[in-house]
C-alpha cells in the first residue's frame, strides 16, 4: 500500500503538512529542480502501470463518446441476421446480439449518451453541492447549521431512492435521469466542500495571512480556494464513477432513453433474455462500465495527493 516508510526520527522532522505537499529532506533543503518536471512525470507513471492503464481506458471512452466512428465505423442499429448471437471472436470481438448487431459497435456508440448523462449529473452535484458547502463553511453559524441539517436529511434517503422519486416526478429520459442522479449526489459534495473550506479557513497559514493584514476576500481567493480545490476535484472524479454506476442502473431499469437509442445500462438489460445462450451480450457492456468506473476511481486516487506525495 505504501512505498515509503521514513524512520520515525525522520518523521519527527517533517510534521503534519497541511496540503500533503511532501516533506523536507533529511538534512536541510531538498534540491527540487524545476527542470526535472517531465522526467518526474515519467518516473511517476512508470511506477504506476495501473494508473497508465486507467488513463488509456478513459481516453478510449472519451474517444468513443466524441468520435465513435474512429473506434467502430459500423452502424450500431443495423445487424446481419445471418450473424446472430456470434460469440466474441475475430470479426466481432465483443460478439453479436440476437439481431446480429455488433456488440462492440453498440457499446462504443452508447458511450455518448451514457457519458452525457454522467457529466450532467456530476455538474449538477458539483455546482449545487459545492456552493452549498462553500456557503456553509465560510459563513458558519446559523446558515451553516441550517444547510447542514438539510444535507443530513438528504443523506438519510438512499441515493437511488431519491433518484427514483425524482424520476417519478420528472418522467423518463437521459437528461431527467442525469438530473435525478445529480441531485442525489448534492449532499456528499456539500459535505466535502464544507469540510475542506473549514479546514483551510481554520488553518494557521490563513490566519497568518490575516495577521499580516491581507484582506478577507484576498485571503479567500489566494489561500482558501486553491487549497480546498484539490480534494473537491478528487471527489468530483470519484463522483463521476459513482454517477456512471447510478446512471447505468437507472438505464438498466428502463428509465433512460427510449429503445432505439442505446445506453450502457440498457444494453445489459437488452441481453438479459439471452443470458442462457449468449452471455456476452450482457457481459461485455457491463465489463466496459466496470472498467470505466475502476479507471476513474484510480485517477481520482492519483489526484487526491498521490502526485504531491511522490517525490
Amino acid at each position, binding site marked *: 500500500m505504501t512505498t515509503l516508510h521514513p524512520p520515525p526520527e525522520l518523521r519527527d522532522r517533517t510534521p503534519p503538512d497541511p496540503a500533503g505537499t511532501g516533506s523536507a529532506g533529511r538534512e536541510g533543503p531538498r534540491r527540487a529542480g524545476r527542470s526535472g518536471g517531465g522526467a518526474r512525470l515519467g518516473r511517476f507513471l512508470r511506477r504506476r502501470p495501473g494508473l497508465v492503464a486507467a488513463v488509456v481506458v478513459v481516453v478510449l471512452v472519451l474517444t468513443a463518446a466524441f468520435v465513435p466512428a474512429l473506434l467502430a465505423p459500423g452502424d450500431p442499429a443495423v445487424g446481419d441476421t445471418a450473424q446472430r448471437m456470434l460469440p466474441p471472436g475475430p470479426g466481432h470481438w465483443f460478439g453479436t446480439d440476437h439481431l446480429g448487431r455488433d456488440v462492440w459497435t453498440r457499446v462504443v456508440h452508447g458511450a455518448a449518451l451514457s457519458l452525457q448523462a454522467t457529466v450532467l449529473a456530476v455538474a449538477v452535484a458539483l455546482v449545487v453541492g459545492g456552493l452549498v458547502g462553500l456557503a456553509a463553511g465560510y459563513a458558519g453559524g446559523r446558515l451553516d447549521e441550517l444547510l447542514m441539517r438539510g444535507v443530513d*436529511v438528504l443523506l438519510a*434517503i438512499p441515493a*437511488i431512492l431519491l433518484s427514483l422519486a425524482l424520476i417519478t416526478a*420528472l418522467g423518463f429520459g437521459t437528461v431527467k435521469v442525469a438530473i435525478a442522479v445529480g441531485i442525489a449526489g448534492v449532499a456528499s459534495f456539500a459535505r466535502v466542500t464544507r469540510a475542506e473550506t473549514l479546514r483551510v479557513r481554520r488553518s494557521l497559514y490563513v490566519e497568518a495571512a490575516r495577521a499580516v493584514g491581507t484582506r478577507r476576500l484576498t485571503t479567500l481567493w489566494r489561500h482558501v480556494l486553491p487549497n480546498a480545490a484539490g480534494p473537491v476535484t478528487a471527489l468530483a472524479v470519484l463522483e463521476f464513477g459513482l454517477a456512471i454506476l447510478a446512471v447505468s442502473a437507472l438505464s438498466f431499469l428502463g428509465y433512460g432513453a427510449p429503445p432505439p437509442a442505446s445506453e450502457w445500462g440498457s444494453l445489459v438489460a437488452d441481453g438479459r433474455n439471452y443470458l*442462457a445462450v449468449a452471455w456476452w451480450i450482457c457481459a461485455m457492456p457491463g465489463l466496459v462500465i466496470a472498467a470505466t468506473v475502476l479507471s476513474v476511481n484510480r485517477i481520482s486516487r492519483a489526484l487526491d495527493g498521490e502526485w504531491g506525495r511522490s517525490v
Partner: protein
Amino acid sequence: MSLPYLLRRLGLAVAVLWAAWTVSFVVLYLLPGDPVATMAAAGDGEQPSPAELDALRARYGLDQPLIVQYGTKLWAALQGDLGISFATGEPVRSAIGAALPPTLQIAGAGLLVAVTGGTAVALAATGSRHAWLRQALGAVPSLAVSLPVFWVGLMLVQLFSFRLGWLPAVGARGPGSLVLPAIALGLPTGALIAQVLAASLTRSLQSPFVTTARAKGVGEAAVLLRHALGTATLPALTVLGTVVGNLVAGSVVVETVFTRPGLGRLTVASVGVQDIPVVQGVVLFAALAFVVVNLLVDLAYPLLDPRITVSGGAR
C-alpha cells in the same frame, strides 16, 4: 443513560423523518408532471375526458391547493395513513407491508454476507504476514465498488444457474434462491465495510498503543484482534446506517435482476406508472430504517467506547 437525552435523541429522529417526508413531498408533488393523466392513460390507452380527470383528481385530493394537501397528508401520515395507491387503490401501508418480508429476507442475508465478508477481507488485508497478500486484498474493495450490481447479479446467474446449475436463477422459493441475490446485494456494501474497517485498522495498527502492546511481548494475532480491532470497529459502526439504507435501496436492482417479489419490485412498478403515494411510502420507509439504525448505533456507542459519555456531549 439519562431520560432527557433519550427523549431529545428520539425527537431528533422524528424531526429527520418529518424532513425526509417533506423532501419527498416537495419532489413528488411540486415538480411538474401530471400523475392523474398518466394513471388514466395507463388504464386502457383511451384518452380520458377532462371531467373524468377532474373526478380522479378530486378522489386523490389533488385538486386542493398544495399547502392544504401538505397539511392533510402530513396529518394522515402522522396517524400512520400513507394514502392510497394510484395504480391499485390499495392502501400504501398494506402494499408496503405485503412487499416487506421477502425484501427483509434478502436484505438480512445481504447484511450477513457484507459484514462477514467485509470484516474478513479487512482483517486479512491489514493483518496478513505477506505483503503481496495484503496488497492484493487491499485492492479487492475498490474493485468491488466499481462493479455494477445488476451486472454482477446477471453474471452470477449465468455462471451458477445456467452454466453450473447449482442454484435457481429466479424466484423466491427456498433458501437456495436467497444465495445469489444476497451475494449481489452484499458485495458493494461489504466493500464499503471492508474499506472503512481496513482504513481504521491500519490507523489503529500504526498508533503508539499497539507498539506498547508489542513491547509487552503480545503476539501479532492478539495485537490485531484484542487491540487494533477493538478501537477500529467504532468508526466502522458509524456507516451502519448508510449500509442498511443501501441494502434497502439495492433491493430495487437486485429484485429486478432475480425477478423476486418485494419492496424493490414494488418501487420499480410504481415509478413506471407515477404511483406517487407508493414511491413516497418507500422513501419514508428507507429513511425510517436509516434513522432507527443510527439511533441504535448512537445509543450503543457510549457502551462500546468509554471515552464517549452521554453527558459529556462528545460527538
